[in-house]
């Protein structure tokens, strides 16, 4: 069993969730907002497909991405995350206070100095 593959399994869905979220944001930012229904109709998709794309359950195909970008009046670049970086974090299962989040970010940030966690 390869553990690298397992990590990828966690990383990959995050990208689609981010794209989906971006679509949803841009859709609601239009004036007037573009509904899921009208976006679906324009692309010849079902409303459920749009829902699935937006929550990242469906891994969007490239031509659909172009279609959505065109409908929303943006480029596909506007829909894609810049990089696979920390913005793609998975949300916490529990409520986390701002104070806690700051501490977590601090501990999670790469250390400047040498490696500290050696040993068992």
């Amino acid at each position, binding site marked *: *069993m390869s*553990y*690298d593959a*397992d*990590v990828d*399994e*966690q*990383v990959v*869905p*995050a*990208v689609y969730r981010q794209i989906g979220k971006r679509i949803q944001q841009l859709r609601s930012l239009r004036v007037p907002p573009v509904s899921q229904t009208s976006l679906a109709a324009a692309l010849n998709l079902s409303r459920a497909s749009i829902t699935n794309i937006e929550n990242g359950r469906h891994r969007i195909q490239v031509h659909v991405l172009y279609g959505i970008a065109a409908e929303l009046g943006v480029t596909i670049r506007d829909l894609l995350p810049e990089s*696979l*970086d*920390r*913005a*793609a*974090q*998975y*949300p*916490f*299962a*529990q409520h*986390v206070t701002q*104070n*806690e989040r700051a*501490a*977590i970010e*601090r*501990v*999670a940030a790469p*250390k400047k100095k040498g490696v*500290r*966690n050696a*040993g*068992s």
Partner: protein
Amino acid sequence: MLDPRITAAAERLLTLGKVQREPVPVRQLAKLAGALVRRGTLPEDLSGFLLRQADGTIIGVNTDHSETRQRFTIAHEIGHLVLHPQQSYVDRRFFPIHFRDQRSSRAEDLVEIQANQFAADLLMPKRLLEAAVGRKGIDIEDQPEVERVAQRFGVSTQALTYRLINLQLARSTTPPKKSSKR
């Protein structure tokens, strides 16, 4: 009730890490499971966290806590990593949850219970624990003995006691308080 699927998951990681004896090298196993362990100070009630991000998964551990607690925290977070996809976790307290009834628990509690079981399975593998205390187990009221075994495994006496009970390796001989002849 111990979930055999969770035990199996812990056993797979132990096998992968070629762990033959205690104390289980939990930090190495974290790496093997695909997480980077980072240490640091967190608010007092936070033991640690599992932060999943696109460029890698980080297990954070509160270094203000005792070594045994840190080890348990790391093992617990590996549990989330292995058992619970697609979310990050922040972990406050582990043990009180043990006492709650699994059936009446909320889903949130259930994942914590599962991560706790994984941690116990990982840090105190049945095989190694049996080898250490014998098939008949030990008297969990024999403090020095519990302490000794806990130290060998790098766990708290509390964690060990739960584990011994769960594995039915706990002999409780309350009655004759004075003569602990065993």
